[in-house]
């Protein structure tokens, strides 16, 4: 769906679209009241169709999967642990980064009210950091797939381990990355 207020340039163009539409409706209504009503109905229908169109062809396509890799001789593992995870078993001899996504409900994400969820994730991250000596533990985005994608940008990994039994989270991550994903 098109957002007419996404940028200043688009908002400016939208303003002139509205000015043009208003001018047509005014001109039609001066000729005949019902012609003005018809112009308004057609104008609003066209506006609705225009708003529903894709602004950039291909913008709604699913994003490309994220690939990752590590330098020769190293084995890196990215572990995703949802908030509340008490313990984790990580592979011996591997460099490990644990990401705790600040999982939030849809309405919390939509309204930006994710502060409490972030505090929960930080508490879990602190607890896990104490238990896992030598492992880096970080808090990630509220979307687990996005948290993994962010982590892979700075921490190339050979595999992703997902703790917990949330099937939705596991599947979302597996669809998003091109490296092996398994349950921790």
């Amino acid at each position, binding site marked *: 769906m098109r*957002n007419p*207020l*996404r*940028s*200043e*340039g688009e*908002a*400016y163009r*939208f*303003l002139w679209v*509205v*000015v043009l539409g*208003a001018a047509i*409706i*005014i001109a039609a*209504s001066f000729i005949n009241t019902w012609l*003005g009503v018809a112009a308004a109905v057609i104008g609003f229908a066209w506006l609705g169709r225009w708003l529903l169109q894709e602004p950039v062809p291909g913008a709604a396509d699913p994003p490309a999967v994220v690939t990752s890799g590590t330098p020769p001789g190293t084995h890196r593992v990215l572990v995703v642990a949802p908030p509340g995870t008490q313990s984790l078993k990580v592979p011996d001899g591997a460099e490990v980064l644990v990401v705790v996504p600040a999982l939030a409900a849809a309405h919390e994400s*939509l*309204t930006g009210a994710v502060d409490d969820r972030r505090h929960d994730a930080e508490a879990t991250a602190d607890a896990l950091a104490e238990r896992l000596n030598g492992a880096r533990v970080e808090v990630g985005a509220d979307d687990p797939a996005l948290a993994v994608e962010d982590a892979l940008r700075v921490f190339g990994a050979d595999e992703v381990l997902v703790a917990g039994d949330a099937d939705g989270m596991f599947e979302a991550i597996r669809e998003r990355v091109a490296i092996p994903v398994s349950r921790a």
Partner: protein
Amino acid sequence: MYLFIASEIMLFGSFFTAYFFVRIVNGVAWPTPPYHLPVFVATINTFILMTSSATMHWSTVSIKRGNVWGMRAGLLLTFLMGLAFLTSQLYEYMRAGFNTSNGAFPTIFFCLTGLHGCHVFVGLSILAFMTIRAFRGHFSAENHHGVEIGGIYWHFVDVMWIVVFTTVYIL
């Protein structure tokens, strides 16, 4: 942004519902005799506001090209034109010859134009901060998010004025 647009649509929508109810469902003449709407002043105000949108766009384009003085001039002109719009609207209110105690027509008129006037006031406040920041050298070709966001709001206010002007003054 979608939540903002939705909340604004609901806010203006409630006032427009009252307007259409009074004018169409109740069949009250618009404007109710013997009152007259100051259409000429409102038309001049419309041109002022449309020009202010153009200067706002000029300001944003200028800073994107690294033209700091173009941005400053654009913001200052936009602020002055917004101020001119608001001042003439207040003057128009004082000379209207009716007030909210004169029935449904003046009440809806003041509510709709007043609601838009409040948005202009908020936009002017944002513009004032943007202009001060611009003259203090806060924006550059790489960092101009503040100008972009303020510009979006200003164009939105202008879009709403076109809707208000068309329905209240012209049709």
